[in-house]
């Protein structure tokens, strides 16, 4: 188990490095940098001015060196221009070039500065991530139990009418992406044209003060899309367990049906859905981006859209690092949990 964990962690680290490098490379392409120079400096800069602007701020160097600096394994650049002013990567307000640290990258906790929000990237990300965590928590609380319930009810009598009805429901929800279900839910429950007006169509106010009225629709929208898939997996797993020999034995012994389901089948049937639930995280991240945009809830996904749409390079890098790490950690947890839950699987 120890070696397995170590190897997984090693692969994870390598994956993170590769992915962050790809993002770094894609965000630091020449057109992006020129756009950055023009938005930060002056819209009417000439090409030579753009080039010197980029030169001064250390953008005009090989990508690997810049990546090393961003990561914090290479010392930050120091540029002394002809008029004596100093530009350096690690130079913050109130520092001189002597007191400034040599290394300042992600590893040192310096995530950079957002050009759109005019704040430190680490501050933005921690606040936004907190808001999204609140959303995700409620999504999980709603999604997981209802999906498992749907799946178990459908799978315990395969082919019955309940099974057909519940399976159709879960297929429908998997076929409804968030931007469709969100639009339909807003249309039905929040629109002034229909007149139901049970909920609010935006979740902006839920950032400070979440209540049922302003927070339920976004939660439901994300939960619906993920729910169907988990329910189908649970159903398949439950149906398989219900045909197992030991269930038949229990039946022949005269154990009542609810008892068979609750005490004999359920535990074995829930191993497979566990992995699926953990692997849903990357999908949920997608859903979060769509739903936060749709309901104007200014969380992590919303930040991603803002950063990507406004060429905010350092914020976008920070956001991608966090999301990639979230995805990889959930994959790791799902692998470990699977081994832990299922004693028949062993890792060598």
């Amino acid at each position: 188990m120890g070696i397995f964990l170590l190897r997984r962690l090693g692969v994870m680290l390598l994956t993170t490095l590769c992915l962050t490098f790809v993002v770094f490379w894609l965000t630091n392409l020449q057109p992006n940098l020129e756009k950055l120079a023009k938005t930060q400096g002056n819209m009417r800069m000439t090409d030579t001015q753009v080039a010197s602007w980029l030169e001064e701020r250390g953008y005009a160097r090989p990508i690997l060196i810049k990546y090393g600096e961003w990561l914090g394994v290479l010392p930050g650049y120091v540029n002394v221009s002809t008029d004596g002013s100093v530009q350096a990567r690690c130079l913050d307000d109130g520092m001189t070039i002597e007191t400034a640290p040599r290394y300042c990258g992600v590893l040192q906790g310096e995530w950079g500065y957002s050009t759109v929000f005019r704040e430190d990237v680490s501050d933005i990300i921690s606040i936004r991530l907190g808001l999204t965590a609140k959303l995700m928590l409620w999504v999980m609380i709603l999604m997981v139990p209802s999906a498992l319930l749907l799946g178990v009810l459908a799978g315990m009598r395969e082919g019955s009418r309940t099974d057909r009805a519940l399976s159709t429901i879960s297929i429908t929800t998997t076929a409804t992406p968030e931007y469709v279900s969100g639009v339909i839910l807003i249309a039905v429950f929040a629109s002034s044209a229909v007149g139901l007006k049970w909920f609010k169509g935006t979740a902006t106010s839920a950032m400070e003060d979440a209540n049922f009225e302003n927070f339920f629709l976004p939660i439901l929208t994300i939960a619906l899309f993920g729910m169907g898939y988990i329910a189908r997996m649970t159903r398949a797993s439950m149906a398989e367990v219900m045909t197992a020999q030991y269930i038949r034995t229990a039946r022949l012994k005269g154990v009542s049906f609810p008892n068979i389901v609750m005490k004999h089948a359920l535990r074995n049937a829930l191993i497979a859905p566990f992995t699926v639930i953990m692997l849903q995280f990357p999908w949920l991240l997608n859903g979060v981006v769509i739903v936060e945009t749709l309901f104007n809830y200014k969380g992590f996904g919303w930040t991603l859209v803002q950063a990507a749409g406004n060429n905010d390079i350092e914020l976008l890098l920070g956001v991608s690092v966090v999301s990639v790490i979230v995805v990889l950690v959930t994959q790791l947890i799902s692998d470990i949990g699977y081994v832990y839950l299922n004693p028949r699987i062993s890792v060598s």
Partner: protein
Amino acid sequence: MEPLTSAEIIPRILWQFLPVWIALLGLFALSITFKRRSGLYGKLFDSTIGMIGFALVMFWVFTGIFGAMDLIVTHDALAQASGMKNKVPGTPLRGAEAGDYPYYLLGGDNLARDVFSRTIKGAWIVVQIAPFATLFAFMVGITLGLPAGYYGGKLDTLLTFVANLVLAFPVILLFYLLVTPEIVATGIPSYMAAVLFVFPLIFAGVLLNSRYHTRPSVRTPLLIGVLALMGWLYLSLVSDAGTPLKVLPGWLDLFDVPGGILVVFVAVVFVNAPTVFRIVRGLTLDIKTRDYVAAAQTRGEGGWYIMLWEILPNARGPLIVDFCLRIGYTTILLGTLGFFGLGMPPESPDWGSTINEGRKLLTIYLHPALPPALALLSLVLGLNLLADGLREESLRD
């Protein structure tokens, strides 16, 4: 003129779909008559769920095709009519001339365009892109997944690592990174297209060569013919006037894919291919232990022959089912791209963009956003039901 009531709108919409109904009826009549003689496709008509799914899918396919032929649409999808902004369904067209359809059946959107016609035109975009993108993703996934599973070793480790890299990437972030105008200007999507679209060529070449290499008199002309034709198509697809890859002179260039669409296509193929790769690899790992593979190895067949002519045909069941599901997923991805305004031109009638435009006024005007949303829902639902039906029927033997 009076606005139409909903009891009048529905028959009119159904009437507009008349060519689709005829085509569907014809297709079902033919298929059910010959269902015993058409293999898995025929068996589909034994399962109710499969039939419903197939009907939904074919409804949108026919709608897309006839819509592109201007049969169903009532107005130009891009034309704006004065005074029709955000008008409710059934509003008569102001200042309609003879020959114009007198109503906006599903109302007007916030630029006074006909919602009904835009939804129909949107179907054509999906019907064009989604199956092809999925097909290309399958070509890439199969061509890489078979050797990864069959040979294993370093190749497998490397390819699996790369596939996992792409899979660990949040899809929307990838789209934002690939489909922005700045990245398109550097030509990266064009180069990716050049790489990804080469896989069908490799696939076809290896497929034919491994089968006929013992008979050079058949193989050589066949390979030259097929590869020349596919190569020409490939070059006309890849070479485009506005991109760095301009290899073919204009008179040889068969068709030009509009820039935005090509980028969208590449992004969708790129996102889907790793999952297909993993499925194919898993299936290969399973099937290569079978006796008929051992028999072929003993006969001295080459690796690619075994992979393409022994393993692949036996993996077709799960692959066909996944193909249907994946078209649905691709449709969702296309909608996501449109929803974030990525890739497609802003006036494009595709469903994602239309939903995105409609959602801004959603609490006041429902009608511009709902039809494309329901259309997308029904198409993806149809594909999922079809996949379910296929799975059930293919498990039955």
